[in-house]
């Protein structure tokens, strides 16, 4: 199993080939896609292995694989694969258009690789200190992507991103220290005091007061990365200014990495403190985040910001599902993580087509995408319907499960509030995308990808992602539901 971890984590680093002096954008893109494919294949194989054999740890608990880790790894590896395909096409198109220099393209592939590998590695960190280190490292790599275009606005967004997230992650470090301290009565070596499996197994012996503090600080600290309100302010700027495939990685990958850390802390807190305290914290942050996301979706003028606020809303939804708790709530939260990740990756990648074609990121400046870019326009509309929770797509099924979990937990008022916010969010997202899709096609007709090869490469992730969402909306494959059930069992 240890060997398999490396096969998941290291291949995305293949994109570092861009540092070689003679490497062209085309070669770097192809190598990146190859690496991501290997990594995704290994993640799926690992998931099958974990379902069959159960969890395993290596290097004295520094690395740990259970169904939860491998579920998140499959999700993130799939996002990395989609975004790599998108990157290969997008960077080539930007190079051809003269919008990116050769140096910027090299930087892009370098940091994209480190970012992807960092996220995948953090999934297997059994030691919560190591988890912190890896999450901070992936933040730094992604900050470089946000500031890549080096315009005043993107640099400012990157600055806001790196400084707010670094401060947030520093708070998560305080949480880690308090968690370490909460186990002071346990007879363990100091490495084991941060090993999740030991802490989870001995949760009842941890000191409650400092554990409570640790959990709250972890939700605030890692919540800054996740985009929980009121720590979300960096998120819309960073998502709007990053190149579109990098936005897809941020929204569908990085936010989930932060959520993964919160899920780990929540499991310990629930086992040690009972359900009430973690539930209150998560529901409060979850509903606040949903409300903020929904309100700003109604008034967003830039479509990448619109999708970013939709991500904020979705992260709120996942926190609420975790807060409802119970096996059903956790199952629904994890399912939502998967469906949102795929949907949002597709949505941000499609926004790349639109911004290449229309040369603007303002909703007001985009009309008639269905007529001008029939394929991208169609995917944009379908993907936004999917993310907003329309049947027959996967998000609908997961949100329905969350509502069921709410009613099952006896919180019918909260489940009603949840439904209301989801409906408003639907109107905000789909309304704006409809106004972009319809209307007269501008003259001259916008072209996203001039070459056929670019068009095929850019279309591949959209088709793959959208068909996965459709399949997940109709039925959940038995292998996946088995993995999800094992993941739920691993943390309860």
């Amino acid at each position, binding site marked *: 199993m240890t060997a398999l971890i490396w096969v998941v984590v290291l291949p995305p680093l293949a994109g570092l080939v861009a540092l070689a002096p003679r490497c062209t954008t085309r070669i770097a893109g192809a190598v990146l896609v190859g690496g991501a494919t290997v990594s995704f294949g290994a993640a799926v194989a690992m998931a099958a292995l974990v379902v069959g054999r159960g969890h395993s740890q290596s290097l004295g608990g520094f690395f740990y694989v259970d169904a939860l880790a491998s579920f998140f790894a499959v999700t993130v590896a799939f996002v990395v694969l989609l975004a790599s395909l998108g990157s290969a096409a997008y960077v080539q198109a930007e190079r051809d258009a003269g919008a990116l220099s050769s140096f910027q393209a090299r930087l892009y592939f370098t940091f994209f690789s480190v970012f992807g590998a960092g996220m995948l590695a953090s999934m297997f960190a059994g030691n919560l200190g190591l988890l912190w280190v890896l999450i901070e490292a992936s933040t730094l790599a992604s900050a470089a992507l946000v500031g890549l275009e080096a315009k005043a606005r993107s640099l400012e967004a990157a600055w806001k991103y790196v400084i707010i997230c670094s401060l947030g992650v520093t708070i998560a470090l305080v949480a880690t220290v308090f968690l*370490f301290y909460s186990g002071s009565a346990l007879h363990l070596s100091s490495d084991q005091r941060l090993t999740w499996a030991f802490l989870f197994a001995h949760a009842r012996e941890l000191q409650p007061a400092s554990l409570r503090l640790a959990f709250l600080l972890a939700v605030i600290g890692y919540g800054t990365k996740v985009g929980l309100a009121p720590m979300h302010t960096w998120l819309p700027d960073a998502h709007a200014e990053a190149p579109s495939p990098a936005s897809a990685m941020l929204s569908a990958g990085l936010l989930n990495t932060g959520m993964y850390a919160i899920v780990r802390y929540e499991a310990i807190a629930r086992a040690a403190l009972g359900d009430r305290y973690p539930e209150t914290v998560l529901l409060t942050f979850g509903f606040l985040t949903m409300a903020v996301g929904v309100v700003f979706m109604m008034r967003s003028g830039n479509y990448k910001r619109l999708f970013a606020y939709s991500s904020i809303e979705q992260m709120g939804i996942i926190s609420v599902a975790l807060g409802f708790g119970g096996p059903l709530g956790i199952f629904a939260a994890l399912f939502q993580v998967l469906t949102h990740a795929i949907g949002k990756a597709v949505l941000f990648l499609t926004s790349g087509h639109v911004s290449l074609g229309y040369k603007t990121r303002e909703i007001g400046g985009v009309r008639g995408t269905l007529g001008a870019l029939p394929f991208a326009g169609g995917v944009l509309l379908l993907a936004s319907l999917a993310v907003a929770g329309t049947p027959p797509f996967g998000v609908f099924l997961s949100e329905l499960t969350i509502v069921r979990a709410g009613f099952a937990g006896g919180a019918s008022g909260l489940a009603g509030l949840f439904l209301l916010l989801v409906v408003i969010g639907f109107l905000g997202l789909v309304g704006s995308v409809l106004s972009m899709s319809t209307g007269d096609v501008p003259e001259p007709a916008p072209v996203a990808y001039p070459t056929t090869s670019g068009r095929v490469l850019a279309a591949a992730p959209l088709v793959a992602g959208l068909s996965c969402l459709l399949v997940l909306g109709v039925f959940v494959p038995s292998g996946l539901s088995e993995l999800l059930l094992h993941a739920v069992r691993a943390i309860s």
Partner: protein
Amino acid sequence: MRVPAVTLASASLQQLSSSSAASTLVSLSAVLMLVLSFACLGSKLFNRYVAYYGAQSIVLSFAAAVVAVRFHSAELWALAALTLVLKGIAIPVATRQLLLERLDLRRDVALSTGLSTSLIVGALLTTFAYLAIGDDTLPHGLLAAAVVPLSLAVVLLGALSMVVRRHAVAQLIGWLITENGVFLGAITLAATFPFIVEAGIFLDLVAAVLIMVVFVSGITRRLAQATATELRELRG
């Protein structure tokens, strides 16, 4: 879930009691660090920010060395040395040369509140830090009970100076002070924190500072260009 067997050598967490000589030295360092945070909060000159941060890091490395002597821990010695070299010397020197001198930064004018207001808020935050760490979290008699509230206050003061200052360099220093506060808490609360994790934290810190320096100089240069263009457009 199956309970994993405890395989490595195990012992309950070692803690410093508040009565030893080592504890007095660490407490003194903590107070000094708090004073330096206040000094930074009350200052308006960029090179003072950097100087106070450097001094605070040197005090922090001294505290780490004291804990290292007390626990006979080579790892803590390494940590104290790293703190001294990186935070006490390298980062301040680099900030001074790469940012302050090259961008010609002297007086910080981008403050969102007056200095006296931010000092009063800082005092309130320090009180809050004492209230937040109650008796049920840390029992009396431990060094940590005295030092952790101080370190939390340093964390909050660093965050406060990030909030009240709008200039990127000032925010960077604020974040570094916050980080120092976390480390002070970590060495007293959890002296035996795994070394590999601490080393990783240092690595991240250095990478973060490098990336931030690149961004800051980029932003400042863009802004300078923008002003210059405006001046040219307005002429005649």
